[in-house]
């Protein structure tokens, strides 16, 4: 063995209950393991990750003088650290350990027990041969920058920002829109308690603005991020608002004074249901309380010949600046919380529901605005044709649970549909029909809310609304939106004429979620939601250390869950910051200086510019701090003079031989 004296390997096969032992004959593998050269101890145990399991390793090292440890259990992603810890506790260098994944890669994916057992043996043989070549290594300790970047100023981002700021950490909150608040700011009431969304959200929004530890950048995008956990360098592009933030006092007189006396343009915040001027504030409680000028509609931008009454009224404050330019900021942070949220399903994708064609078909988010007292109709439900609805149909699962659009359940639609049913009924006294596949109310107080609605006389028809049409088969249907549905409980086809249709549209990842994912170097699920490191045990972590998730960017969830997750992400971030240092995997590449011929093949290959050519020595040199350990240069070095810790050539060659040696 590789200069480490006598090889003495301890081999442990975990049953993981029946997760592994149910498919792999662990007893046979353990017995076979004893026959492997170098293996001194070969055991199987029910749960290796348990304390007694780890203690087995510690005891064996002490009693049997083991110098290498191999554990065959689950994915290294889960317990590599655990067993390295046990190895270290036993007095060995933690990197004298190697893990074999016989659960995710074997017992869980194969049914043929014999084949699975053979596979486990091959993988274990490879590990035993590999571990012989392991070298003692040390993790590199790097200080952590205490500042945190939060991307997205919806309720999740706001909550995470306040939590961290209250803990004394400096937070950069970057929001793309002119105001923070996100989707929640558009909601009227929140289910199931029916407390006013604005009443609970706006104090938090104001707190963000006032907090000395929070730097809030609206109308801003993150354009670049470099570095690694604890030490990220982030570039933020700030788009012009054409209002100088420091000079504006938020009196909003400029809006009043705009040459447009009437609001003329569709108002984004109200989803086009209301109108705004070219200079506007998204909604009265917007944070920051600053107007914004829309280049597309402002006369000054279009013709350069506006009277600029807004500038006149602003007077000496001189807060309006038509020449404001895009700017960039570069910041250093130690961790990042992504809270970029979701977008609602575009109901136009399903033409048979008539959205965009029949004016009185609304999406649920539009309905929120319609019933909101601060909305375009001051809370009165007035349809696009000016009427008030007497009957309303609410169609669940539009753009959810559907192979043709999005396959997932959007999780919040049942409850918000019930809420909308209640509120519309309250506002209009209309007769309300809900069309559903399943009613899902698995939350605190949710089922009680459903009961309440049932007792309010809201109709619940089990059947997905199949189409909205306007061709009457009876005079009573004339001028109505007709919902055709199979009432699956009663077993009848029904046509239900209504005045207003609300499509309960699902939640989906932002159209540009893929770009954000690439930017931050994290993964997405196949649906496009950001992927958590582990669905149960690391729900706010990503596979990239130091980047955390909060809110709907990870998957549909309601406000309490978003807030809880934001808190969790903030706590993970705090834990990271307060550990002061981060330990980096020692899988960096290094150059055998004596052997390097200075051919420079490696230099253009490193994406982090970690390799440089030292003229004095005429050799290449790797800056360990910059090396991320991908190993690309190692594979390329034509004279074999670059090596990689943890992934040495010999280690991999031994693995190859090991997995094939049974033949």
């Amino acid at each position, binding site marked *: 063995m590789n200069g480490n004296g006598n090889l003495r390997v301890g081999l442990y096969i975990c049953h993981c209950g029946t997760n592994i032992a149910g498919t792999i004959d662990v007893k046979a593998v353990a017995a076979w393991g004893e026959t492997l050269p170098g293996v001194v101890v070969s055991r199987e145990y029910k749960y290796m990750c348990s304390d007694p399991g780890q203690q087995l390793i510690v005891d064996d090292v002490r009693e049997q003088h083991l110098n290498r440890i191999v554990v065959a259990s689950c994915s290294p992603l889960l317990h590599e650290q655990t067993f390295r810890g046990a190895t270290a506790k036993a007095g060995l260098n933690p990197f004298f350990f190697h893990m074999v994944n016989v659960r995710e890669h074997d017992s869980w994916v194969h049914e043929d027990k014999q084949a699975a057992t053979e596979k486990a043996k091959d993988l274990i043989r490879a590990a035993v041969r590999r571990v012989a070549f392991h070298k003692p290594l040390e993790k590199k300790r790097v200080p952590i920058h205490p500042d945190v970047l939060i991307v997205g100023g919806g309720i999740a981002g706001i909550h995470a920002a306040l939590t961290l700021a209250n803990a004394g950490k400096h937070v950069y909150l970057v929001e793309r829109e002119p105001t923070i608040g996100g989707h929640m700011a558009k909601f009227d009431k929140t289910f199931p308690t029916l407390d006013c969304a604005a009443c609970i959200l706006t104090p938090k929004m104001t707190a963000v603005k006032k907090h000395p530890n929070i730097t809030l950048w609206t109308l801003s995008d993150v354009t670049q991020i470099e570095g690694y956990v604890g030490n990220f360098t982030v570039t933020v592009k700030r788009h012009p608002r054409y209002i100088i933030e420091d000079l504006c006092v938020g009196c909003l007189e400029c809006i009043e004074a705009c040459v447009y006396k009437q609001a003329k343009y569709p108002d984004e915040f109200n989803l086009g249901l209301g109108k705004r001027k070219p200079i506007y504030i998204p909604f009265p409680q917007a944070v920051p309380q600053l107007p914004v000028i829309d280049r597309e509609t402002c006369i000054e931008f279009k013709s350069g010949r506006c009277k600029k009454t807004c500038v006149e009224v602003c007077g000496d404050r001189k807060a309006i600046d038509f020449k404001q330019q895009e700017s960039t900021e570069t910041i250093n942070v130690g961790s990042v919380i992504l809270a970029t949220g979701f977008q609602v399903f575009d109901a136009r994708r399903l033409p048979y529901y008539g959205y965009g064609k029949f004016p009185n078909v609304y999406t649920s988010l539009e309905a929120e605005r319609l019933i909101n007292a601060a909305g375009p109709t001051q809370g009165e439900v007035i349809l696009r044709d000016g009427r008030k609805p007497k009957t309303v149909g609410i169609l669940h699962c539009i753009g959810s649970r559907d192979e043709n659009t999005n396959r997932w359940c959007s999780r919040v639609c049942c409850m918000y549909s019930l809420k909308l049913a209640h509120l519309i009924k309250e506002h209009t006294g209309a007769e309300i029909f809900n069309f559903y596949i399943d009613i899902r109310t698995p939350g605190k107080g949710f089922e009680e809310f459903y009961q309440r609605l049932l007792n309010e006389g809201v109709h619940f028809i089990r059947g997905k609304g199949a189409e909205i049409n306007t061709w009457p088969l009876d005079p009573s249907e004339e001028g109505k939106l007709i919902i055709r549905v199979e009432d699956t409980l009663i077993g009848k086809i029904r046509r239900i004429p209504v005045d207003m249709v609300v499509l309960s549209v699902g939640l989906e990842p932002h159209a540009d979620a893929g770009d954000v994912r690439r930017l931050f170097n994290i993964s997405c699920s196949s649906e496009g939601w950001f992927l958590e490191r582990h669905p149960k045990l690391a729900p706010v972590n990503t596979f990239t250390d130091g980047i955390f998730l909060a809110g709907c960017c990870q998957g549909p969830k309601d406000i309490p869950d978003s807030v809880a997750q934001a808190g969790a992400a903030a706590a993970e971030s705090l834990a990271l910051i307060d550990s002061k240092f981060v330990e980096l995997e020692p899988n960096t590449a290094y150059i055998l200086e004596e052997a390097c011929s200075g*051919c420079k093949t490696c230099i253009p290959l490193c994406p982090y510019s970690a390799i440089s050519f030292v003229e004095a020595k005429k050799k290449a040199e790797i800056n360990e701090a910059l090396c991320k350990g991908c190993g690309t240069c190692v594979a390329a070095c034509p004279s074999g003079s670059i090596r990689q810790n943890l992934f040495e050539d010999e280690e991999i060659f031994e693995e190859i031989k090991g997995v094939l040696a049974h033949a």
Partner: protein
Amino acid sequence: MTDKPKVAFYWCASCGGCEEAVVDLAEGVLNVVAAVDIAFWPVALDFKRRDVEAMADGALLASFVNGAIRTTEQEEMAHLLRHKSQVLVAFGSCAQLGGIPGLANLSSRDEIFQTVYKEAPSTVNPEGALPKSLHRDNGDCVSLPGFYETVRALNQVVDVDYYIPGCPPTPKIIQQAVEALLSGKAPEKGSVLAPDRALCDECPRKDTRPEKLTLTAFKRPQEILIDAEKCLLAQGVVCLGPATRGGCEALCTRGNMPCTGCFGPTSRVRDFGAKALSATASIIDSNDEKQIDQILDTLPDPVGLFYRYSLPASLLRRKKLPEQPATKGCAPKAG
């Protein structure tokens, strides 16, 4: 009989260039002759195989064997010399790595016979006779060495103590090696008696390679007018210097030709061609599959390029033989 240590020179499948290299030592050869007694050197001296067979085991201090192993006779001689020598040295690329004759591993024996004895334009062989190891004619019996399917490097046949690389080894390398062996300061067994650093280290063009070199096309030497000063790779010519062990004093690149890899890999590399390939492919300046393929079209015959001297010593050793009834009979090793 003198007391001088006895040495032998022998050639297997080779071109004779290695023998020439010994002669090329010029006056240097006198030092060798003065220091040792050449007991066997078929190319120059009239000793017979039976003379060697008559020696006691280990009677030779060293045998220098050049050439690859292609025939039964070569294998027999390799074994014989191994027994009679204290030190067996693989001399030159062919013995070390299989060499140019090793490229025959891209063909099967049948294909070779077919081409050489039947199809070559200069061949007249109306009966289609092929070499046989035993031929009887009128009661006379002639035997010829058998011709193996696969060419091997010397160490794939017998245990080898040292390697002197090169096609052929340069006088300096030979002299240093012989001196090291005679001085008794023998290096670690299995060593290649040349520096363990790639050629770039000693190449006069080294400094002209840009730090970040990537290529959009590869050139063959005959395709361009080669700048005599500039790094060949920087001119688009595939030079294997970065992958090849140094020690030749950059003879080829000084001579305005790219390194073709005759000194073989460094001790840290198991497969010369694979590493050379990896380095070459890595600096292709494209991330687009189609474009990569277009660029690679300028690299015809990758095996000939990257394994010019080392196919038998490579991990794959030879081109996969077509499934034949003969090999079918040979079952794969049992599981």
